[in-house]
């Protein structure tokens, strides 16, 4: 970003901060604040000015207006002396923060393959899952969950109740582990035999090929179909397992059902078989299961899954279901973000200096319809001439813009500033006045 472009962006950021209504966190005076300016280091070197504090809302707003920072953050923690150095700040508590970002969800190589829009879609899916965990498992109220678009490739969640503020970093880690299924032990959720007798007492079947008597649909000895015969096996159905009805047990019940419905029943035979084979089943086994889903009894079987009553399912199947149900990354695996009780988080309603998008609060009810490339765009539509320095494309407000290196293009202001912040384009040099 050359100086001229920087100046332009800075002007535009200033305009934004002059008109924007900044969402000021409660207890803002107890937070530490940090900013990166559009100064001459930017963006090659990001100099964070930390350990700031503000006594009044006005002081904070004026600071933003005067400096129009490229990035604005406040601490998750509240302190007695927020402006003191780390050792003497006097930690009083911290909001519970989740940071879901595309680069924690897909690997670095994959990252290149996805478009920005696709990545946002992926993160959104994970965010929906996380919110579901927070409400249904952790019992947070919807109004206590502040959902914010990060301004870049993800979402943040802030929870600021008194109870969470006292949690230590170890306790926070446990919450992250919960939503990411880290350390989940199948033994803990498979609680044992069914308590109700009807399924425990099982009908006997005979193999159509080798005549073995079994309770299985498929003969364990030769893999052929079995048919029902007279008689029952009443030994409390030793291999009937019951999935716990709460916590991860409940999620796995639902996950198993969803998996069967969407990945096996809802697909062609070949795809269904492929899915199952991918989980380590033999071809025969996979075929049998796919055929089984077409039998009349399948509805009943799905019902049983919902009740948590299971026949035997091998570990790879669970691994697959857990993978589907867990939040892929509420946190980057190497940096325990949520557990870090001293970290900084972007100020909602500030601008993200690498995208020019607003760090936008989103209501959970309307999250489904939220489109950052529409709803977090804050700049106008008047045409701006830019010189592209490399190829890039973006779809904003429903329009796709494409620029090629060295091309001069005239695009709406919001797209122009986006490209500048991404380092894709510079403002076009005027050759001569007029």
């Amino acid at each position, binding site marked *: 970003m050359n100086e001229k472009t920087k100046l332009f962006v800075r002007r535009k950021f200033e305009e934004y901060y002059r008109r924007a209504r900044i969402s000021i966190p409660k207890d803002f005076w107890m937070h530490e604040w940090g900013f990166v300016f559009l100064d001459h280091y930017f963006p090659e070197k990001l100099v964070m000015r930390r350990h700031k504090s503000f006594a009044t809302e006005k002081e904070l707003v004026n600071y933003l207006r005067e400096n129009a920072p490229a990035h604005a953050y406040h601490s998750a923690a509240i302190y007695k002396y927020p402006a003191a150095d780390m050792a003497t700040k006097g930690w009083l508590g911290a909001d519970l923060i989740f940071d879901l970002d595309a680069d924690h969800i897909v690997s670095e190589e994959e990252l290149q393959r996805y478009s920005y829009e696709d990545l946002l879609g992926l993160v959104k899916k994970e965010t929906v899952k996380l919110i579901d965990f927070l409400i*249904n*498992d*952790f*019992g*947070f109220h919807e109004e206590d969950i502040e959902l914010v678009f990060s301004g870049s490739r993800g979402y943040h969640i802030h929870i600021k109740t008194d*109870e*969470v503020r*006292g*949690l*230590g970093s*170890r*306790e926070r880690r*446990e*919450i992250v*582990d*919960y939503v990411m*299924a*880290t*350390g*989940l*032990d199948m033994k*803990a*959720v498979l609680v044992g035999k069914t*308590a*109700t007798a009807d399924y425990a007492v099982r009908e006997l079947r005979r193999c159509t090929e080798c005549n073995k008597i079994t309770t299985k649909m498929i003969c364990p000895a030769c893999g052929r179909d079995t048919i029902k015969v007279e008689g029952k096996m009443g030994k409390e159905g030793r291999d009937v397992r019951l999935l*716990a*009805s*709460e*916590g*991860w*047990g*409940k999620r796995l019940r639902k996950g198993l059902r969803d998996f069967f419905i969407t990945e096996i029943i809802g697909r062609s035979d070949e795809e269904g078989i492929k899915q199952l084979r991918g989980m380590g089943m033999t071809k025969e086994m996979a075929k049998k299961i796919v055929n089984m889903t077409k039998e009349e009894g399948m509805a009943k079987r799905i019902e049983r899954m919902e009740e948590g009553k299971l026949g035997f399912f091998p570990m790879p199947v669970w691994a697959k279901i857990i993978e589907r149900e867990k939040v892929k990354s509420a946190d980057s695996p190497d940096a325990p973000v949520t557990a870090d009780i001293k970290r900084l988080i972007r100020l909602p309603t500030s601008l993200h200096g690498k995208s020019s998008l607003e760090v936008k609060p989103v209501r959970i009810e309307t999250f489904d319809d939220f489109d950052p490339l529409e709803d977090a765009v804050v700049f106008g539509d008047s045409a701006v001439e830019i010189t592209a320095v490399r190829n890039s494309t973006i779809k904003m407000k429903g329009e796709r813009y494409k620029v090629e290196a060295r091309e001069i293009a005239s695009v709406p202001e919001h797209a122009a500033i986006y490209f500048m912040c991404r380092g894709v384009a510079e403002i076009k040099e005027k050759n001569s006045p007029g």
Partner: protein
Amino acid sequence: MVDIIMDWHAESIPIPTHTCFYPFLSVASEYVEESGVTLENLISSAVLERARLRGKGRILEAIRDGKVKKPVILSKAQVETELLSYPFARILVSCIGDKYLVRRYALSEAKSAYEKLLEDSSTGSTGSDTDIINDMSEEFGIRVDFFRLPAEREQVQMPFFDYLRFTANLRDKRWKLVNRGLEKGMVKLRRHEFLRIIQEAMYERIKKDLPLDVPSDICGAIKGYVGDIKKELEEKRKKFSDASFGFESGSEFLVKDPSCFPPCISYILSNLKEGVNVPHSARFAVTAFLLNVGLTEDEIIEIYKNSPDFDEEQTRYQVGHIAGDKGSVRYTSPSCATMHTYGNCVGKDEICEKVSHPLSYYKLKLKLKRKKEQQDKSNKKES
């Protein structure tokens, strides 16, 4: 004079016998407060000598056995002795001011109280199981509900905040939140599991504020009780350090032989020893390495104690995490390539040329050393 006071109170404030088994509960401390026994009395009054001796005994038992035995109560006076011995023990522990002692003492008291609690709840000697759970949760400010699923045993549920707070030190993976039934913010527990959590709450309560800030003249006045405790503590410590500081024991079987550690690891270790602040990546490397060669978590924590920013709890957590308890993966120490990337490959020598992993360095060097020893031996025999 004191005798009269004591008698008078014993008459007027009824206190259930079993309270003295849990002297850290609020009823017990209220009793002590209202009994009119002053700090002055407690440390010097002749009639309270029994309480003081029992107080000292509590600590000695804690050091020796990790338990504080619950006596058979035969008289009211004994109840009082038991109750008053507890605050005196706290004063003693505080005057000694040793961190290890504080932890050991608090843990022993909590454990013994827990055992008593289990006994009470199974014999029903102090009311029903439900009463005990209710009383205890009220005492520790935990909101509990009882609920019953169809065809299942009655369970207890508590808010996950409290659950996390009190299970922070429980390492078994079944305590991990992810393995619990959690619904709408409440964690489901079996009754005995809840009681186990109460032990943690008791531990926190007992450890809280210890060591107390006791004025030096008071510590001076009770010096006579301190000597035996210090001696016991020293002995324990000696045993402890002999047994645990794995690679200083000079045992013949050289499983953890620091002389065979690769230069990178030795360098980090010496920095830790000298209290030099060591970057995170190096701490990770050394911790994983030591765990991989078989040191225990406690032994490793010992090593970190010299570190300038030592925080026991945090270190314990980090080491535990690397060790892979609570269900996390057990880490293998980083390879030479990674060590190099983070600038932790320091002091490369000729053995390094043959290996690509600090652990292989260690194994190779051990082998070489043994070979050499064998040779030396046979050389000696020959000569």
